[in-house]
């Protein structure tokens, strides 16, 4: 069953969250709260889709790292999709790309059931 809302889409045990245009101030923490509430509700796979996101700064990075920690703590899985080049570069600078799966599209991310675990290279 697929439920689609403006900012997120629920597909079985997975949820795709579409992040905002900018993740550059502490307001971005609502993304973290949203993920936390999905984890609480038993969702085990979280995909954050960045196709609409033009800017992630250091505050955004700290928020995303917070989300990754939360997902790990609750033994869930998290992946990113739809990264623009500039965002990919930033995630790579701060070392995020080594720790989570990154897909071109949200469909790839949702369908990547077979690939368990994390990409470590």
């Amino acid at each position, binding site marked *: 069953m697929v439920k689609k809302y403006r900012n997120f889409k629920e597909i079985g045990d997975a949820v795709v969250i579409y992040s905002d245009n900018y993740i550059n101030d502490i307001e971005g923490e609502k993304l973290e709260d949203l993920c936390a509430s999905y984890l609480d509700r038993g969702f085990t796979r979280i995909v954050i889709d960045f196709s609409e996101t033009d800017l992630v700064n*250091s505050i955004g990075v700290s928020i995303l790292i917070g989300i990754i920690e939360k997902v790990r703590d609750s033994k869930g899985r998290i992946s990113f999709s739809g990264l623009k080049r500039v965002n990919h570069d930033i995630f790579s600078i701060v070392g995020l790309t080594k720790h989570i799966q990154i897909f071109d599209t949200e469909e790839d991310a949702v369908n990547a059931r077979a690939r368990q675990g994390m990409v470590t290279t």
Partner: protein
Amino acid sequence: MLQTDLSLEKLLFNLNTLAELGEEITSPKDFTRVVKSALYMVMGSFSATKGVIFQFDSDRGVFAPIASKGLGDVGAAHVKLSKETASALTKHNKPIDLKKGEHPVETLGEAAGVLEKLEARMIACLVVKDELLGFIAINGKFSGEDFSVYDCQLLSVMAQHISFSLHSHMLLMRLMHKYNENKGLYENLRRIYYDTIHAFAASIDAKDSYTRGHSHRVSAYSAVLSREMGWSHEEVEGIRIAGLLHDIGKIAVDKTIINKASPLTSYECRELNSHPVVGYEILSKIKFPWKGIPMMTRNHHEKVDGSGYPDRLKKTDIPIGARIMALVDAFDAMTTDRPYRPRLSFREAMDEVKANFGKQFDPDVVQPFLTVIRKEVRREVDNPTIVPLLQEQLDSVSLNRMLEGFPVA
């Protein structure tokens, strides 16, 4: 992506973060938010998952958390540093890798335990002018990498930025504290002042069983009337105090004279009529923060035609405050019971005022007084003062009838 590209990208990202941090700490946003944003910037730059900013709390002599992330509630995590430790940290003034255990880590003592609980790996001191204002503590990088020399430099620059923010906020708080302290002190004095005067007024009224509350009413009526006449806030406060004290001279008059129902002998009359001068003698020895209180007291029984006492002054020679008090004093005396007669109705009192318009009472005071009464009866004011204290109901139709025939000033 090539490694060299990444370095340039990293440099740009970090420069951008520094620029944003600079912008953030000089923004007019509230301090809590600024500190939180600053912490997130630091954590984002080093991909840290746990971090705290501590600030020195001089009241408690400890460093207390003012922002944190990834650690849940850290409100109780206080860090106590000895003077020696604080000065060692200030002198070192470089980010410290707790894992390496190099100097001055060994000076931390008990604080090391608190920091360990917070999983702190790096601490950066927040120092301005050799004063340790606080410090940032973050855990290791998410990527597991060590902190490079370059990372330490970046952390140091970010810490300097945040130090200045903390410093200016601290100065502002100190200023506010001083201001509030002074304000509190002043208000306290003012309250003591008012309390004392109210107690005094009550003791004056207590001498006269009929005039309970007279001084308070004269005070309140004078204040509302002078405000209607455009007096400043300070001037209104002055006449409010004068109203409370205007009969203070009665403390020297025998109680039996004050409460006498039958006509007074000429001696008794002289005694009673001495109260404005006695009051003046008392009050002129007190240094009031408001002007004119002794003279308003002295002249509150003068009449504009020059037939009053004690100085037989005419209209403009009588201080305006005394002319205001003369009217409201007589008005209150008429509308309350006296030893020698029951109270007059409002209509009867107004007829008296009308009959003595320009003789006993100043037309320039009577007119605004009528305005106040009209406004209160029509409920055009939020806090009516005079009408609720009258012992009868007034409506605007009968009021208009009662006030007919008042000469225009």
